[in-house]
């Protein structure tokens, strides 16, 4: 059976070292650059006309903008729009990379834990910095919910602190594991086809069944690719909302 995790191997394309730091250009870096250029190019192309009655591409870009802007307004209110550029960038970056990864033979950057961990840590640090800059020590009210009886308050605060510090972990693992699991499942089912065909005879006759399964899973993976980009952005909004309004 073919190795299902071979597809996540990071390959070195151009060795490069800057001031003793290993900055080798890998296939992962290549797809990140491709994803950024693709989303940038599409949005620039879509907004080149800027007519009152939008062209087809322009209305696509406008609906993406409105979708993310609605998400930001719903979760953070009007003052959250300061963070709109950050959140829109997250959404476009993750969505483009997830979708690029769905093309057979392409590398899925979001299935690398260090990529999603870097994004999640960026969100985590932004929340802490913005929270203390905007509210001062009032940010610590996040760990002391209102209306909790005093005798359970230490326990509740402890739970709140633990849940706050486990956020980057779950935030990054969710995107990483979803993409990883989806791509492994596709590969495993594709491996079944080859195994059944190789067995010959009656086993070959049922080889189309895993092919149908692969077709269905591919459709599901496109949904997951969008949904995980949405969930990641949505959670970013909620975490930033804590920084803006720490009192529950």
């Amino acid at each position, binding site marked *: 059976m073919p190795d299902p995790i071979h597809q996540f191997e990071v390959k070195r394309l151009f060795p490069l070292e800057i001031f003793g730091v290993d900055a080798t250009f890998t296939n992962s870096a290549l797809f990140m650059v491709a994803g950024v250029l693709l989303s940038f190019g599409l949005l620039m192309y879509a907004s080149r006309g800027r007519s009152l009655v939008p062209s087809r591409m322009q209305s696509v870009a406008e609906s993406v903008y409105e979708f993310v802007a609605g998400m930001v307004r719903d979760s953070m209110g009007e003052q959250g729009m300061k963070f709109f550029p950050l959140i829109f960038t997250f959404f476009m970056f993750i969505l483009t990379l997830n979708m690029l990864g769905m093309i057979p033979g392409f590398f899925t950057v979001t299935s690398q834990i260090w990529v999603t961990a870097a994004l999640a840590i960026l969100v985590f640090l932004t929340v802490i910095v913005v929270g203390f800059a905007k509210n001062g020590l009032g940010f610590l009210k996040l760990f002391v919910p209102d209306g909790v009886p005093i005798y359970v308050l230490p326990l509740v605060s402890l739970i709140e602190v633990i849940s706050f510090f486990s956020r980057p972990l779950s935030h990054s693992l969710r995107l990483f594991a979803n993409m990883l699991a989806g791509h492994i499942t596709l590969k495993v089912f594709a491996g079944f086809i080859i195994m059944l065909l190789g067995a010959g005879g009656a086993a070959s006759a049922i080889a189309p069944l895993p092919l149908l399964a692969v077709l269905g899973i591919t459709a599901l993976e496109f949904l997951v690719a969008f949904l995980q980009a949405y*969930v990641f952005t*949505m959670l970013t909004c909620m975490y930033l909302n804590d920084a803006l309004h720490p009192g529950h």
Partner: protein
Amino acid sequence: MDPQSAKFIGAGIAALGIGIAAIGVGNLFGQFLQGALRNPSAADGQFGRLIFGFAVTEALGIFALVVAFLLLFT
């Protein structure tokens, strides 16, 4: 017991966690539909919360999956 087979059994047990998380996700959407059918006009406004709950619930199942993968492939 052979360590290799113990690893595979462990991965299988870890994968059970995903099924248990599936109960949670099913419960979530079921309850949402129940509420949504009682008051359809309020349903659209709660879509964000639904997805948030889905993400948090699913993450726990995904953790079990990560444990299974770690046992299988490392």
